[in-house]
């Protein structure tokens, strides 16, 4: 599955940037946030801030790179 990423600012209250994740039909499937370096749990990692549809209600992992996050989301959405 090909996913498209769109940068977006997020008001998490910290110095953090976000990324909208859209599927092939331009539907929003997830919001990723690159955590602030001050975060004590996963500084600088990409965090699945929100997931929709099949990504809803699951554990929300962190990823060391945007590519890893995109691959993981793609695999989740492709599962039948």
């Amino acid at each position, binding site marked *: 599955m090909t996913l498209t990423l769109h940068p977006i600012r997020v008001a*998490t*209250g*910290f110095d953090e940037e976000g990324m909208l994740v859209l599927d092939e039909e331009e539907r929003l499937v997830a919001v990723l946030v690159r*955590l602030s370096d*001050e*975060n*004590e*749990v*996963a500084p600088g990692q990409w*965090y699945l801030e929100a997931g929709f549809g099949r990504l809803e209600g699951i*554990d*929300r992992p*962190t990823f060391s790179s945007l590519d890893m996050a995109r691959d993981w989301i793609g695999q989740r959405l492709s599962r039948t």
Partner: protein
Amino acid sequence: MHSPFHPDYNPLIRKIESAHTLTGDERQALETLPMQVQVIKADQDIVREGDRPSRSCLLLSGFTCTYKITAGGKRQIVSFNIPGDIPDLQSLHLKVLDNSVATISQCRVGFVTHEDLRNLCARHPRITSAFWRETLIDAAIFREWVTNVGRREGVSRMAHVLCELLVRLRAVDLVEDHACDLPITQSEFADALGFTTVHVNRVLQQMRTDGLIVTQGSRLNIPDWEKLKQVGEFDPTYLHLENDQAAA
């Protein structure tokens, strides 16, 4: 009254005496209750869901949690247990445990056989009443947690649990001013509050910035108690403490 650091300090007696005046006989019966004391390191199960215990555990020092696990392996902590609590007292009457209890920090635990507990209760009906009352308060705490986890957000949800812990710890003399030892990790708070650890960390950082909490290692200090209670919408009525000072 013994201090928490005295070897004879019995938090169960301290807890019961916060609501009942014990007679000399009752006090002696509790002091001489046969107990197998064990030191258990952090992050160990004391009892597990499905167990059929023949004894209950009195927490003498340290913190434990009561938890359940979903089929997918997610843990929900449903309460934190502090010294003086008997987190599996229900197994005296309910044969199969429907939850697990694990240590959070290193704990001293006193195991009391159900037979000895039955004898104690048969001889001292007022102690039976005190135990019954404690289990009713446990249920009140669970009701409060469902409301908190289901309906309060972020900082408010965390503030509520911190207020509860401080008030309960104060009732067993484990609070100085508004400071206490709280060895609960961010991951354990996540399992208790239904947050991710990332979210717990954001909430705690926000609370530090707002001056609601000061943390140093496992030491928690609450500089503005009234403000924390307000943010957590905390009303201690559900803890049913007889001593009004405990809630202050």
